């Protein structure tokens, strides 16, 4: 259509004068006139005057105004959309089964089997732990991989290279951070951590090892342990922490933890059935510990990368 509106302007025209006039044109007409194939004449060895291209000037004010306009419209549109969504969502939700109803569709044979046969088949009294590590173990493997993935991508974003690659600005910022670090070690925090950190670790271990028979398990235990390490580091500084948690230990623990999990799970799904039924009863504890290691490493690692760009 645009092509018909500009008759006799063949896009492959070799006539240099066709593109030389200074009339204002839309991008499309410009394009049809050969803006993007400006080199065909050169291809035919026909020297031509280089055409003046309209230079795109960055017009600050105009663009700011456009942005303001856009954001205003966007605000209105999203508010409207959210209101509509709220109404529909509330309506949908009100017609769902009543809260706490034992006859709801969700309370079918699935939870019944998990509850009655889970303790026998898996050896774990905590039905949630039994479910996430054996019945639906694949989801949990994926979940650990999400954690690992988050850690790897944070590393990709924030890990510093050797000091030589840093800009001067970053180096001064780092020096400032290093100078500021001892100041954060205030008396109350140090004394409180002396008392608290052992208890946090103890509680973390209890939650980790008791995950089979009481609430808890690898995920919460790992988070508690990592909170303990973070507190320790905050109170006693990074040198003290590096005695037991440096990069080498970190990589080793993370890789070994994930590998244990993946290999065990691989064995669990690939081995023949009669081996599986033996394996199932002993599977939860090692996987639980592996998950605890992974979560602890991930959370501490992300914290360390956030603080200093290294582990």
């Amino acid at each position, binding site marked *: 259509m645009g092509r018909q509106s500009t008759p006799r302007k063949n*896009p492959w025209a070799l006539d240099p004068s066709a593109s030389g006039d200074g009339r204002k044109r839309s*991008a*499309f007409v410009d*394009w049809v006139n050969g803006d*993007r*194939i*400006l*080199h*065909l004449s*050169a*291809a035919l060895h026909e020297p031509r005057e280089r055409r003046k291209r309209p230079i795109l000037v960055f017009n600050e004010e105009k663009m700011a105004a456009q942005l303001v306009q856009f954001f205003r419209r966007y605000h209105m549109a999203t508010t409207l959309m959210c209101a509509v969504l709220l109404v*529909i969502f509330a*309506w*949908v939700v009100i*017609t*769902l089964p009543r809260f706490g109803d034992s006859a*709801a*569709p*969700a*309370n*079918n044979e*699935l939870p019944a*089997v*998990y509850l009655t046969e889970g303790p026998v*088949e898996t050896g774990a009294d905590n039905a949630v732990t039994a479910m996430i590590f*054996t*019945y*639906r*173990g*694949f*989801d949990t*493997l*994926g979940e650990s*991989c*999400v954690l*690992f*993935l988050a850690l*790897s*991508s944070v*590393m*990709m*974003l924030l*890990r510093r*290279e050797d000091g030589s690659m840093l800009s001067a600005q970053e180096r001064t910022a780092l020096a400032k951070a290093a100078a500021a670090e001892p100041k954060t070690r205030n008396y109350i925090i140090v004394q409180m951590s002396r008392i608290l950190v052992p208890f946090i670790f103890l509680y973390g271990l209890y939650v980790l090892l008791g995950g089979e028979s009481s609430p808890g398990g690898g995920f919460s235990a790992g988070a508690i342990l990592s909170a303990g390490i973070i507190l320790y580091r905050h109170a006693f500084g990074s040198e003290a922490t590096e005695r037991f948690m440096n990069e080498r230990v970190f*990589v080793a623990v993370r*890789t070994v933890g*994930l*590998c244990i999990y*993946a*290999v065990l*799970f*691989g064995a*669990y*799904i*690939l081995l*023949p*059935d009669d081996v*599986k039924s033996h*394996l*199932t009863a002993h599977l939860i504890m090692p996987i639980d510990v592996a998950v605890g290691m992974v979560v602890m490493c991930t959370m501490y690692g992300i914290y360390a990368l956030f603080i200093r760009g290294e582990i």
Partner: protein
Amino acid sequence: MLPFYHYIPSVCILLCLLSAILLAAVRNGRAAFAAGIGLAAVTAVLSGVLLFMLMPAEESFTFVMGHFPAPFGNELKAGPLQALLTMCFSLVVGLSLLGGWADLKHDVQPDKLSLYFVMTSLTLAALYVLTYTNDMFTGYVFIEISTLSACALVMAKDRGPTLVATLRYLFLSLLGSGLFLIGVVLLYSVTGHLLMKQVGQQIIVLRSTGRFGLQLAFIIGLFTAGLGVKSAMFPFHRWLPDAHSSTTTASSAILSGTVIKGTVILLIILFCRVFTLGMVNALHIDDVVFALGIMGMIFGSISAIRERQSKRMLAWSSIAQMGYIFTGIGLGTRAGIAAACFHILVHATSKSMLFCCVGRLSAVNGHRKMLKEMQGTARHDILAGIGFTLGALSMIGIPLLAGFASKLYLATSTMDSASKTAATLFALALSTVLNALYYIPAIVTVWAYPEDALIGRAPRDSAFTVSAAVSIAVVILLGVAYAPVMHIIEVGLSLL
């Protein structure tokens, strides 16, 4: 004892996860590259074997992930279609890595190179799971994995605009997976199951009694919107051009070629296996998808015409091509979905090849991005020029190339649904013209004589040569021997 090929899907997934875990501990970028390519090759071969074993008997099977069967444990379901798609994904990932390797060394910091291959392994794992899974919640977890790893692939090129593009991509994707999760939650509370087969059975019961009709309609809408955001369906496409064009070549190729397809495949599986096409038709979801697909097709092409930057032009073209796929799904018939699946294969191979070739062509001229700065670059790397030309012609739909067959199938499949025939044919014709309008000038540009001497000519790149040669062969093969491939897709769809 199960026959050996029943283990192939789970072995592939475990291989991807394990190699990702181990690669994170590797420091040497070159070794990680070799491992990444090796992984893609091994999984491609394994999927090929699976396809070869399944096809003669037209068989599909479910594989129990662990000790506990169907409603209690996780399951995978594999058939010829899934095997074909995963083979294509592995192939595309491998070829993209090969083709983009030179750019990777240029764009990614050397000590972070091995992490890049961690991300590609996890992307591959997520694609495999999204294709094979028979469980909704596993689908959610691996959608998140694919989101995060895709974002990491985008931001591998450590520059400001890339980071902002990543952020927008991340937020929109998370919104999409949030919508998907609500869908899963509501579906669970309505049916009480998470495995697709059981959910499907419950839905049939619910529809016969007429309970929870509102919820079911809302759920399908949520799934369509959530997965649509992640695969750049028309009104939710704004994140794609920035994210796919500002990053390094291999990432662009992988993202455009495979990642946006994974969620579409999940949508197709949900439509066929859980909700059934009859229900989708009855709720008119297919009409909405159809309209959005057509709009995406035309809007993407028009935006591509206006674009002056080469990779961004290809990214806009991806939106248009996703429009084809959604149009196919929106026809609401099995033939339409088969055409969409074929187009998934076509676009995956052609677009990854296009991105690799454009990366190489711009590398020849000192990594310049604008289309006009690529003038004459094809004369310095003939193979890249041929690859670009063939890929572009395939996207336009020239016979003997892959794109022609998929357009043909899309056109013939509209004959079943009379109300949509005219619209589809018109949109196909229009978008073919529009495609030609931006691809042909680009082809002319890269083959024209260069105006000035090119800056910094890149050295020979043997990895790219291999990748381009294989991609060209695949595109021509798909274009010539489309009938057997279509046969596999049709058999696979009937077994889904």
